[in-house]
């Protein structure tokens, strides 16, 4: 447990010291919200949620790429793969929750009439999905540029795809979009249930993907035999 918490703490410390990144993390969802402010409120809130998701995914991608060379030596220092990826995920979820707070308050200050419980749930889903999503991309694509371009592609698809179409359910942030519809348009409970279930399943699948990649990359190699000190 101590190892898990230490990795989470160090991830948090690293991110908090990247002031420029933090500023951009806050700026991105804000821009997404403001750019749609004059139009329909639902679009504005959905853009905000997508901005939060993209911002946290990007932070996760960069944190994963930065830790790539450090992790093998931490493995030798006594960490097991799950300490490293779960600790990092924990740290990223914490950062995501912290940056979500002002974006939860933003529509309140803006005087928007919507279901605030739904907004909180949608933000939670965005953050929950975004951390393992960015980590998985970072684990599969070792270079930041490729990872960032892939994230950009996914977010663009998410923005442009018809949310009612069956393909939309395959996009990672469909859950928060569905919950946002319940939040803004006062639709039936089904939107909320579907969204929560989707968020839960996608988070679990992405976390499993991260676990699988990390376990392979940081596995104990068969050619190496450890003996106790004689």
């Amino acid at each position, binding site marked *: 447990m101590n190892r898990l918490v230490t990795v989470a703490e160090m991830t948090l410390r690293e991110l908090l010291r990247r002031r420029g990144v933090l500023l951009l993390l806050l700026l991105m969802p804000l821009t997404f919200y403001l750019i749609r402010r004059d139009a329909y409120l639902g679009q504005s809130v959905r853009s905000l949620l997508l901005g939060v998701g993209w911002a946290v995914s990007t932070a996760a991608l960069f944190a994963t790429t930065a830790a790539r060379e450090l992790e093998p030596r931490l493995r*030798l220092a006594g960490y097991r793969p799950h300490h490293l990826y779960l600790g990092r995920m924990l740290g990223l979820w914490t950062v995501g929750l912290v940056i979500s707070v002002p974006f939860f308050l933003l529509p309140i200050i803006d005087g928007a009439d919507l279901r605030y419980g739904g907004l909180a749930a949608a933000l939670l889903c965005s953050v929950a999905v975004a951390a393992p999503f960015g980590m998985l991309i970072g684990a599969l694509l070792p270079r930041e540029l490729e990872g960032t371009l892939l994230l950009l592609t996914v977010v663009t698809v998410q923005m442009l795809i018809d949310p009612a179409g069956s393909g939309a359910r395959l996009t990672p942030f469909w859950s928060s979009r569905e919950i946002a519809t319940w939040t803004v348009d006062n639709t039936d409970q089904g939107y909320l249930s579907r969204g929560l279930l989707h968020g839960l399943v996608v988070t679990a699948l992405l976390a499993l993907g991260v676990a699988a990649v990390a376990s392979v990359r940081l596995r104990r190699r068969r050619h190496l035999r450890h003996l106790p000190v004689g």
Partner: protein
Amino acid sequence: MNADDWLRTLTAELHQRRVAADAARHVVAEAATHLREGGGDPWVVFGPPQQYAGAVVESIGTAPGPRPGPVRLHAAGITKRYGRRTVLRDATLTVRAGQIAAVVGANGCGKSTFLRICAGLMSPDAGEVTVSGRLGYCPQSGGTADFLLADEHFVLVGAGQGVARGPARRAGRAAARQLGWEAGGDVQARHLSGGTRQKLNLTMSTLSAPDVLLLDEPYQGFDQGTYVNFWDQLSRLRDAGTAIVVVTHLLNQLDRVDIVLDLTPAHETGWHAPGIQGGRP
């Protein structure tokens, strides 16, 4: 090199040549007194520190070195191919507790690959490695977190072994001091110079008190004084029973090691190190 540097180098040389600690202290104190009272450039008065240390050894002899202990690392028949290119063929190395092994060879001959295979960070195409006890590894570069302080690196590595924060910090700072670096500052790793960053890297690898220490050219960016301290620390670890493997291209240090593994293909060089093991046929 001023008088202090000269004395520091002499101290390290005497230690490396296994002059008894009391005798070495006495020799250095005498030389310091002579320089203080008589003045003059130590290079003119005594000559190069290495040469003077050699003369001292001839005159007073050395303390008997500790006998090598049990085998700590045994790498046998290591072969590694990248596509059609074979970078390692049947490389074999055995290192006992209290020995330093140097892995040498031309650029691209597979020195770092060999070390990564020994550390279990990469799989070979053939061969196996047996390690007794805890393993420490220092990469050639990287291996640190840009936005963390040195103390936080020590805490992170220490937590892996279940060491509490305070003791991990203290152990890290003490190990860094052996390399002439005061590590307790408020400076993030990304702001450290290349050499200091390598000191952090090296300190992290020794922090878990490994039984087998694998070092991949860890002295990049070290100044002369730190370089001397580095070999001095290696000698101390060896005397404490650590088995050390160091990748190096600096052949002038080979007289300080117990075993040499030359990975240069035989057709590329006529040079053969003393005590050579394994390598390619």
